[in-house]
């Protein structure tokens, strides 16, 4: 871990407070290009820096030094006519003018010193080097400059000086960032490679020649002085990114212009016929024309269809549908074709397709190999089926291949815009293809489409209504890398959040994967946390700082080249001494990563899986705790045997959770449906619903429905009067079945009249024709009369007093 730790630390920029360099015996200098910087990442940083320093500088009588040379250059720039310039350049010139005014007033207040540096150097660069050489023994000095070469020169001076001599850039928060040796060296290497290429391509200006002459020996000196690792920026650039290009055409490959002004809104082209399979069309480039026959349709997308080319397997044709044949698309294809671009893995347009009427309908491009990431790596179940033997190293290779293409496109000032798993393809050899050239953002033509998961929080509204910034593109690049390594998991997936609102998840910036601090309980469920834990520290740090809202790179995201460095380093770990955990090369590890090379790793005695158990470091005891079972077996140990849900062992009874025990031990009674422990049930019925024969009729009846052993029918029947037996006195039915049975059960004769049965006289005969008595409504309910005689004694009569009162009040 030792050496890697160091190199990891070295790669992050050091950040200083600017105040440090305006105290006594310190000097702070600012170069021209800082005042003309239009990079949005550093926007406002200089203003903040002045704000932080002003009071201290005045107190110490030690103003920030802006040499008169710089002032002269700013004055010269601000006097230029900007009408011919790109927007960006014009903005820089405008800024120069603004700062000039601000510096004047700063100087008047004594907070800016511009009186220094009246030397005879033609360039401010040399002036600074002179100043630092001359005063390097006396002051601690810092130079703010965006020029890589100048930063290298100062760095070399600093290495030889007793004093603290640094050169850096200004951050958005007004602090100073000083890049690490390795990063500075690599930047310079790339700059040299870029310049050399320009010169080779005949685009070099005299300034470039001078720069190359200075940089080459500087790089050698730098390498000797600082223990930096050699990189072959030049060769990687040329080998993997630019394949042997076609014989030189009228235009040479070169970057597109950087345009910051959005083109006018896109418009549909006038309707024309849309060709289909079997139709002949024309493929046109600025130099050539050829007849193309559309072959079978290969796919339908949101903007049109893709066809094979009859007789040319290497090419495919994208034909736009009528709603996507637009001016912007036509112009973009034309623009791309005006540069001779060819690269393995990037589907640059190879010709513009015109229909039989000569109208633009689509374009040809090389046939990409492989399948969309969406249909492979992003779907674990399918991925395991399609590429069962892939390891983590293979996924890292995919990332590298992707990054190489992106870095190349970015170097051409092309933004991919809509980076998503459907626009990136990968084949079994891990070659990545970037498709969908017509949606790229080039020279002010916006990318009109987007994908929410890959959309930075700063993008609002319609995609076509604004140009994307490179920062926003870098967000998509980081997201894609994460989703390749973690096979489809979204960086902002987290437990406890509404998983349908992607924009909100991104805007909140709560990256839940654990880094350094305590484990985040919001990490999404599943083995994702293990996959994350096995990434190297440096890669995790870069991801965390990019995705987390508190990360240092959340607004200054890593470039494709920076990621490339990180992933190449990651690739080199496999098989090296740092590769001490055998599970780190698995795409789907099932436990956390081993802490150190000496961390004990065992097979699991229960499931038998190799390397399944890893010792857990205990900070307090300074030793490893070694679990007896692997994570899954431990989980399973206290899982409910029925539903499989992990449960605390104390809550399990007979190996099952309460819910499953209930399901298993209880059942619904077949009769009443009441949930009942099965041990109390007989024949599927609860005790209340057990069948018992009615003691009268013998029908099996649920116990609960019996009343004194009789079913409801028999109960009803027994309360009825026996119509076959009539009272000898009044010739009316007088005795209920129940009552009869009572006499029989006692061995007595059944009585013959009301009087003998009930010890009461016969009731008055109910006269159906008689009018209701006036008092009936107030006193006696008439149903009394139909009640069984046993319960119905003599007809209730009103007391004399009642009748008297009734009469009085009537």
């Amino acid at each position, binding site marked *: 871990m030792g050496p890697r730790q160091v190199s990891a630390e070295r790669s992050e920029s050091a950040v200083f407070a600017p105040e440090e360099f305006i105290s006594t015996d310190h000097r702070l200098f600012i170069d021209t290009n800082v005042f003309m910087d239009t990079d949005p990442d550093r926007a406002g940083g200089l203003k903040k820096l002045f704000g932080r320093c002003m009071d201290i500088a005045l107190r110490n009588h030690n103003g920030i030094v802006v040499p008169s040379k710089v002032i002269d250059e700013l004055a010269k720039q601000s006097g230029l006519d900007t009408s011919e310039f790109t927007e960006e350049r014009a903005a820089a010139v405008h800024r120069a003018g603004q700062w000039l005014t601000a510096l004047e007033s700063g100087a008047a207040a004594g907070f800016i010193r511009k009186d220094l540096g009246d030397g005879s150097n033609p360039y401010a660069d040399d002036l600074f080097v002179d100043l630092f050489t001359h005063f390097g023994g006396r002051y601690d000095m810092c130079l703010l400059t965006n020029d890589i070469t100048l930063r290298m020169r100062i760095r070399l001076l600093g290495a030889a000086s007793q004093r603290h001599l640094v050169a850096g850039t200004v951050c958005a928060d007004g602090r100073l960032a000083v890049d690490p040796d390795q990063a500075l060296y690599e930047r310079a290497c790339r700059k040299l490679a870029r310049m050399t290429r320009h010169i080779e391509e005949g685009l070099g200006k005299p300034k470039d020649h001078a720069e190359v002459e200075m940089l080459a020996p500087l790089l050698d000196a730098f390498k000797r002085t600082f223990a930096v690792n050699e990189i072959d920026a030049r060769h990687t650039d040329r080998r993997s990114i630019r394949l042997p290009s076609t014989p030189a055409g009228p235009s040479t490959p070169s970057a597109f212009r950087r345009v910051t002004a959005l083109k006018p809104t896109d418009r549909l082209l006038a309707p024309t016929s849309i060709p289909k399979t079997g139709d002949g069309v024309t493929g046109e480039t600025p130099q050539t024309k050829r007849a193309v026959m559309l072959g079978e349709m290969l796919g339908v997308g949101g903007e049109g269809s893709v066809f094979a080319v009859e007789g040319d397997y290497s090419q495919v044709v994208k034909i736009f549908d009528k709603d996507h044949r637009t001016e912007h698309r036509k112009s973009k294809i034309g623009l791309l074709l005006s540069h001779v671009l060819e690269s393995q893995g990037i589907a640059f347009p190879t010709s513009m397709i015109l229909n039989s009427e000569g109208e633009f309908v689509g374009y040809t491009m090389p046939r990409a190999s492989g399948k969309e990431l969406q249909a492979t790596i992003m779907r674990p179940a399918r991925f395991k089926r399609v590429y069962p033997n892939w390891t983590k190293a293979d996924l890292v290779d995919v990332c590298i291949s992707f990054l190489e293409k992106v870095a190349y496109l970015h170097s051409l000032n092309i933004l991919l815009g809509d980076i998503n798993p459907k626009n990136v393809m990968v084949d079994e050899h891990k070659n990545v293809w970037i498709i969908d050239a017509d949606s790229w953002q080039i020279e002010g033509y916006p990318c009109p489409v987007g994908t929410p998961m890959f959309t930075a929080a700063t993008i609002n509204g319609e995609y076509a209504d604004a140009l994307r910034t490179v920062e926003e593109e870098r967000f998509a690049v980081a997201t894609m890398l994460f989703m390749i390594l973690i096979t489809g998991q979204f960086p902002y*997936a987290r*437990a*406890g959040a509404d998983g349908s609102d992607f924009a909100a998840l991104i805007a909140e910036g709560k990256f839940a994967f654990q880094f350094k601090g305590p484990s985040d309980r919001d990490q*999404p469920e599943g083995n994702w946390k293990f996959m994350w834990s096995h990434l190297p520290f440096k890669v995790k740090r870069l991801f965390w700082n990019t995705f987390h809202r508190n990360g240092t790179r959340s607004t200054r995201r890593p470039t494709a080249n920076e990621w490339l460095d990180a992933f190449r380093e990651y690739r080199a770990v496999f098989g090296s001494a740092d590769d001490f955990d055998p599970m780190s090369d698995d795409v789907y590890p099932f436990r956390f990563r081993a802490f150190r090379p000496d961390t004990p790793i065992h097979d699991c005695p229960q499931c038998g899986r190799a390397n399944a158990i890893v010792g857990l470091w205990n900070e307090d005891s300074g030793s490893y705790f070694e679990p007896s079972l692997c994570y899954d077996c431990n989980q399973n140990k206290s899982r409910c045997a029925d539903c499989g849900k992990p449960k605390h062992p104390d809550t399990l009874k007979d190996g099952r959770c309460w819910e499953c025990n209930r399901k298993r031990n209880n059942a619904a009674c077949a009769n009443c449906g009441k949930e009942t422990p099965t041990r109390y049930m007989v024949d599927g019925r609860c005790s209340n619903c057990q069948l018992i024969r009615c003691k009268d009729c013998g029908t099996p009846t649920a116990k609960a429905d019996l009343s004194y052993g009789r079913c409801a029918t028999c109960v009803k029947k027994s309360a009825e009067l026996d119509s076959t037996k009539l009272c000898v006195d009044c010739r009316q039915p007088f005795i209920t079945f129940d009552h009869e049975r009572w006499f029989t059960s006692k061995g007595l004769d059944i009585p013959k009249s009301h009087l003998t049965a009930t010890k009461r006289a016969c009731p008055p005969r109910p006269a159906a024709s008689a009018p209701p008595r006036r008092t009936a409504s107030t006193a006696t309910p008439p149903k009394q009369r139909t009640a069984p005689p046993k319960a119905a004694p003599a007809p209730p009569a009103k007391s004399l007093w009642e009748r008297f009162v009734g009469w009085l009040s009537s």
Partner: protein
Amino acid sequence: MALNIGADDLVENPTPRVPVTLCLDTSGSMMGEKIRELVEGVNLFYNAIDEDDDAHDAAEVSIVEFNSAASLIQDFASIERLDRIDAINATGGTALGEGVNLALDTLEKRKSTYSNAGVLYYQPWLVLMTDGQPNGSSAELERAIGRVTDLVAQKKLTVFPIGIGSDADMSVLERFSPNRPPLRLRGMSFKEFFEWLSKSVSRVSRSTPGDAVKLDLEGLAGWAEL
């Protein structure tokens, strides 16, 4: 190696889900040919999702039936865990409001399962099919309409109200869907409808969550009336 992989397929699959709830009228009037065709249509829907690469990993289906009461006959499950339906017994009244409320309750429960586990999902779908007039509790019906229209307004639900045959009460279905008019199936075009539905599900699962999904309304032609 007795690992409980099955129970984990919810969290081990990072594909954002498309929860689809079918809320089906199984009242007495559906008896006979209609209910058989409907069951066949649902099974066909399952098969089509199973065979579609994108929908396979994304779709989760639940089924609520309503007649004199509402009941959940299939809780949300991925296509591999869905049991094909043998038959549904059509009988009783048309407690439509109760059915929709149960469907929404089931959906809410599923959404909270997703959230607790950190699983991503698309705007859920509610497919409401009836061939008659609702005759359950009118308070439940009003509550269901209110809930559905609120969710639709917040873009948290896509609703497909489908009338089966000429007796379906289209005016009630219309109240469930202020934005899109309900569909009336021509005859018994269940097969065509479910084919269209499975295609729409796979179209959504190919898109990225949050995208406004354009439904293939032209694909409806021939078997449905808007």
